[in-house]
């Protein structure tokens, strides 16, 4: 930028979407805006693994493990895969870490940009649809093995409830009720959530459930990292309520994880679900 003046396109009214503006001004900065050589690229970069989300009355919890893998190698032990994208939403990412982080950053700017230009926030569904559009722009990359599968959670202020949206690589958007999980360990995490989830949980119970589900995912999926008690690396947990979102302090998560590990010393498979007519757990 040699000319210090504001370029004419900046002064043109109309577009309140940052990604659309970016597509016009610097398309190379868009994750999906770069030409790629043909071929599979999935093994070139680290992958993020398991994300879980569940709602409780008055809010929603999003949690992610800390491992990134490249094939059989652990690429990073303390990667962060849960991001606050604005006051009332957060995104957890699974898939190609580099592109996913870029996509989440773009999504965060997109929400903030709209808010600043329009003077009001997008509706929860509006935010979910914007994320759809961004993922759709990444389809070519996904077909070469660089897929990104985010999980969007948010507190819908007018509705007064936490909501969860899952996505597929084509940008398809699906609202989930109660709980959901994405990533390589999601099958196991979802099984755990199915048995542990109740719709009347308190916030601290919801956090414990998320940690339990991630542990079960790590137990059976080699790409998901469990709580690392020697290095003190614990999952990232983000809670959103009507007061806005906050990431739980490491000490809080560590305390929950320690309690869970202590209980698993006597029952390694985790809490027992009661059978109908059987003994109560």
């Amino acid at each position, binding site marked *: 930028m040699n*000319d*210090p*003046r*504001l370029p004419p396109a*900046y*002064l043109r*009214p109309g577009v309140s979407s*940052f990604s659309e*503006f*970016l597509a016009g*001004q*610097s398309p190379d*900065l868009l994750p999906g805006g770069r030409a790629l050589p043909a071929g599979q690229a999935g093994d070139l970069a680290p992958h993020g693994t398991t994300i879980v989300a569940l709602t409780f009355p008055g809010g929603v919890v999003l949690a992610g493990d800390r491992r990134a893998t490249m094939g059989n190698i652990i690429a990073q032990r303390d990667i962060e895969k849960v991001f606050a994208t604005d*006051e009332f939403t957060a995104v957890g990412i699974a898939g190609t870490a580099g592109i996913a982080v870029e996509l989440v*950053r*773009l999504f965060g*700017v997109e929400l*903030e*940009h709209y808010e*600043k*230009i329009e*003077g009001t926030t997008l509706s929860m569904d509006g935010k979910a649809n914007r994320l759809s559009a961004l993922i759709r722009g990444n389809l070519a990359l996904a077909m070469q093995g660089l897929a990104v599968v985010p999980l969007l959670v948010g507190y819908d202020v007018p509705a007064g409830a936490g909501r969860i949206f899952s996505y597929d690589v084509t940008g398809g958007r699906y609202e989930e009720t109660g709980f959901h999980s994405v990533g390589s360990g999601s099958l196991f995490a979802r099984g755990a959530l199915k048995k542990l989830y109740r719709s009347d949980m308190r916030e601290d119970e919801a956090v414990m459930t998320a940690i339990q589900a991630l542990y079960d995912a790590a137990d059976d999926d080699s790409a998901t990292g469990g709580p690392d008690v020697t290095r003190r690396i614990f999952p990232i947990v983000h809670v959103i309520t009507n007061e806005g979102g906050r990431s739980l302090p490491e000490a809080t998560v560590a305390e929950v994880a320690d309690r869970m590990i202590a209980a698993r010393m006597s029952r390694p498979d985790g809490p027992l679900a009661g059978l109908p007519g059987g003994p109560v757990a």
Partner: protein
Amino acid sequence: MSMPFYVSPEQQMKDRADFARKGIARGRSVVAVQYAGGILFVSENPSQALHKVSEIYDRIAFAAVGRYNEFENLRIAGVRLADMRGYAYDRRDVTGRGLANAYAQTLGTIFSSGGEKPYEVELFVAEIGDTPEEDQIFRLTYDGQVADEHGYAVMGGAAESVASYLKERYSTGASLDDALHLAVSALGHNDTEDRVIPVDDLEVAVLDRTRTQTRKFRRLSPSRLDTMLGDRVPSAGAVTTPAAPEAPGATGPQPGEPDPPVAPPVS
């Protein structure tokens, strides 16, 4: 075919400056005041939807007087510039100085190019740092001049009388409450009498260093202002306005109350 008259460059620039100044002087003032926790912006603006003070980025705010469509364009361009830079580099690389420079170049070019009408706007670009010493307020005029203001800054209609009021009373390191009281009474002050501006006609926002979020900009709602300002009386020696200035449905100038501050006559 008509022959253009010769107009000397001095006269041409003076005409354009007079034109811009007249447009700006019609509007009401905006005040920016530094306080211990950040920078406070107060303006008299009966509209709840059309803002004069807005957020640009994490630590940067924008305030403007003059023609709405022109400064709104500049505001959007500023948001785009800041978001673009923050996305391409990092959030910390977006600076108020860079933004003020872009505005100055743009306004300056438009002012001195013969083809376009000069913008009838004045702007503040303010940025807070980690300490009050690092806070910056830039004031930009219609012709692209930049002034680095300290403590307080005023622009718009009655800028001179408001500034002289602030000059007498401003002290550094004030609390938000004190700064708000000072700014609101300064806006209500003019040479003949002091007014009490109803809370609903105030637009107040702060860049608040103490906020835990990365975005430090925050608007103060009328109900919050009401509690903060409490019962107000015009400062001593001033003419008391009628007891009920907030008659229902009366948002415009009322009988018995002076018109919005009128600019000093432009030479």
